């Protein structure tokens, strides 16, 4: 039975589910002094709106980096800025410098949740909708697919625990869409943007890199045109980076290094809390932290990650195809997740995205993986009293 508007109905249903999750507490609610990720986001709105751009990443009297300092790349900062401006218009108390720390109110929660919803719609849901609509797939299964992709983990982290993952994942998804349509330049732009929103997108960077590289080497095209294509992509990527990093490149008094050190904090330990990750598991048997020094740990991480990623990348390079691209995305991001330094359990979301995209190839495994990854984030949910919605969404 061919039902019209199936996709739209499902999209709307996922929005309703997300709205439902929004009703529950967020990370760090009523939990001074540090509160949680929700407070972090609010704090970033506060500092981006009130401080000049050079001070965003610097430790100043107004900007105490120990209290949720900015540790995402500049695009997140711009996003916070825009949201912060809106917040200021609605109620300046939300973003009063220093005075608004720990601010909590129902209206504020409503505002923050709506900002997630709007960002989600703009970036992620639109990408997903567009992607599925253009997929050469049996109509009957399209809506199952959509439901899979709006999977519980993302919903809970973004709407419950509170973050803006949907923006970076959405941008990455757009990049994948552009790639499958052959518009490599747009893909480069989109992916650079995704990378500049959250540095975790590096997980997807290697496959992206290899795929684009390979697509330049199409059969039958001359060396010149190949090089031209490569240069075009390179230029576009660099331009995107430059545009975003522009305000931070001007001052040479260590600003760039400061930003980078915030974004890639190697001074934190190898892992935090409980992460379903290789090092964590190994730690149960062998207390790594006591044996090795942090810097050498870091090198081991890099080695193993590279070891597991590069073969995949090379394979992609030599046997370039969309399917391989998707599979490579999964492999590499999984490798990063398992072996990287200081991985958050939320990073599993980066793996789940390509898994859901590739689910038509192996639906059962995909479903199983999504459920397990959702389950793996359970301790995180527990901290925020989010167990009930977690179960509910999973069951749905």
């Amino acid at each position: 039975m061919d039902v019209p508007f199936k996709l739209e109905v499902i999209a709307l249903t996922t929005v309703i589910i997300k709205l439902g999750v929004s009703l529950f507490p967020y990370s760090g609610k009523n939990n001074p002094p540090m509160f949680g990720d929700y407070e972090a986001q609010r704090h970033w709105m506060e500092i981006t709106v009130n401080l000049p751009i050079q001070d965003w990443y610097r430790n100043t009297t107004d900007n105490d980096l120990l209290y949720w300092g900015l540790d995402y790349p500049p695009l997140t900062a711009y996003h916070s800025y825009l949201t912060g401006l809106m917040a200021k218009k609605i109620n300046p108390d939300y973003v009063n410098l220093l005075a608004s720390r720990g601010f909590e109110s129902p209206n504020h929660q409503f505002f923050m949740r709506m900002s997630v919803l709007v960002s989600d719609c703009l970036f992620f849901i639109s990408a997903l909708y567009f992607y599925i609509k253009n997929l050469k797939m049996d109509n009957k299964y399209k809506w199952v697919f959509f439901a899979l992709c709006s999977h519980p983990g993302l919903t809970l982290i973004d709407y419950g625990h509170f973050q803006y993952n949907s923006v970076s994942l959405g941008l990455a998804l757009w990049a994948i869409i552009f790639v499958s349509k052959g518009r490599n330049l747009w893909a480069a732009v989109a992916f650079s943007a995704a990378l500049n929103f959250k540095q975790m997108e590096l997980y997807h960077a290697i496959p992206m890199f290899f795929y684009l590289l390979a697509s330049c080497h199409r059969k039958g095209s001359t060396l010149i045109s190949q090089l031209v294509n490569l240069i075009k992509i390179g230029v576009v990527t660099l331009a995107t980076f430059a545009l975003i990093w522009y305000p931070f490149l001007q001052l040479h008094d260590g600003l760039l290094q400061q930003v980078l050190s915030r974004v890639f904090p190697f001074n934190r330990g190898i892992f935090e809390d409980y992460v379903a990750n290789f090092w964590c598991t190994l730690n149960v048997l062998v207390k790594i932290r006591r044996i090795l020094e942090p810097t050498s740990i870091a090198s081991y991480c890099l080695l193993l990650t590279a070891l597991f990623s590069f073969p995949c990348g090379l394979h992609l390079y030599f046997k370039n195809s969309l399917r391989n691209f998707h599979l490579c995305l999964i492999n590499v991001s999984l490798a990063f997740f398992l072996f990287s330094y200081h991985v958050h359990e939320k990073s599993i979301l980066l793996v789940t995205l390509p898994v859901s995209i590739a689910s038509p190839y192996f639906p059962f495994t995909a479903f199983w993986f999504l459920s397990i990854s959702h389950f793996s984030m359970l301790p995180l949910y527990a901290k925020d009293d989010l167990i009930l919605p977690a179960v509910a969404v999973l069951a749905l």
Partner: protein
Amino acid sequence: MLWRIFASITFGKLLFIPSYRSTDFEVHRNWLAVTHSLPLNKWYVDDTSQWTLDYPPLFAWFEYLLSWVACLFDPEMLKVENLNYASQNTVLFQRISVIFTDVVYALGVQKCLYSIGSTQGGNSPTILAFLLLCNVGLFIVDHIHFQYNGFLTGILLLSVGSILQKENLKAAFWFSVLLNLKHIYLYIAPVYFVYLFRSYCIEIQKSRLTFHFKRLIKLGMVVVTTFGVAYGPFVGQFQQVMSRLFPFENRGLCHAYWAPNFWAIYNIVDKILAVSARLFGWTTVSTTTASMTGGLVQEFEHAILPSVGPKTTLICTLLALIPAIVILLRQPNQPRVFVRAIVLCAFASFLFGWHVHEKAILIVITPLTLLAVSSHEDCRLFLLLSITGHVSLFPLLFTPFENVSKIFLVLTYSLASYSFLSALHYDPKSKSTLVKFRSWERLFLYGLVAVALFESFIHSMVDPSGKLPFLPLLIMSVYCAVGVIYVWLLFVIASLKTEKKISKQK
């Protein structure tokens, strides 16, 4: 399949546990407390709280049963003095009780599915299950605003389902139970009387009339026993109970928010005439604009048109009931016709009744859903009515978060019902894949969107100081009233037409 849909929607309901609760939440908490802590003879007398017990005795027993489970969650809620007590466990318990009692609703739906689905075949049972179980009006009223309508509608469906399966005694039983749970269902009692009398007690075969007296006795026994069991313990305070159940002295023609019925239009016409009279100086009528006092009491003194009292509304309702009675008498023993009659009767009571709640539109929509899967015309009317009806419930939810979610909920349900029903009635010959609305109907729906947006967002943006707080409600009820009356008229015509067709065949 039905249970899968039920499970999914149940999880959805769980998600909305922390959302806004209206005063009805406190009402039910109070009833839990009263039935649990006080002796029987005080149930209908106690007025510690302003929310006195005004449902019939069986519902009081229901609350009593619930209160024993409530003990396990939080005994504090059962103290009558604890007004507005709403601890986390209280909320959890009450919400879960609604969600749990919806199982009765699912059972009712199941019973109806057997009868309707088997004749249609194909996917119609699934679609009917979805339309009924996920009805967004019920969702909003039961799980957000807080009431127990799912449970009650379930019993109604059990009764209707029994009629559909020609189990008339069972139907009478379930309906009596229902009447003793919430007396609002008196609205549709006439249908039962006429149908059971005409179709069950009287038989006309080859122009020979047999009156089955025994059956009448059986019916009487069922009804009387049920009422007896329910009211038995309260025989001594019958007067008191009645005064609580039917508080005619205190309530006015319309609720604080006018239900979108005939009287809403009557009111607005009266207002317009009053204003014009003042502008054009027609008469020296005292320029007291019809007062719109908030709260429970709504005294309406119409300025130009004659004031309307309870007796007038009763007469109007009875007049509007005539089509229902006609089709029941002309076509006995036709369960489909019975359902049509229920819809007609519910319509009549909704449109012309005294102090009608806007939630009563759900009593019209639910039986109409049963008809929507079978005929194209009914389907169109169902869609129009459900969209209008559900939008008319918007003013029940006014907090910022619910403003957003109510739009998405109604939008999703409307779109889903539209697409599912379109697919069901897909006609390969005419190549139309979508249900077609007349052009003015489409215009109405677009206008409805505008009205809905105005009520949710635009009004608060345009008038932040709240100078005209009733304006969006007014617009909403009048606009929806037009829609409801339109569907009613079309439905009456359709019912009479099919009646004529079948009688012609004979």
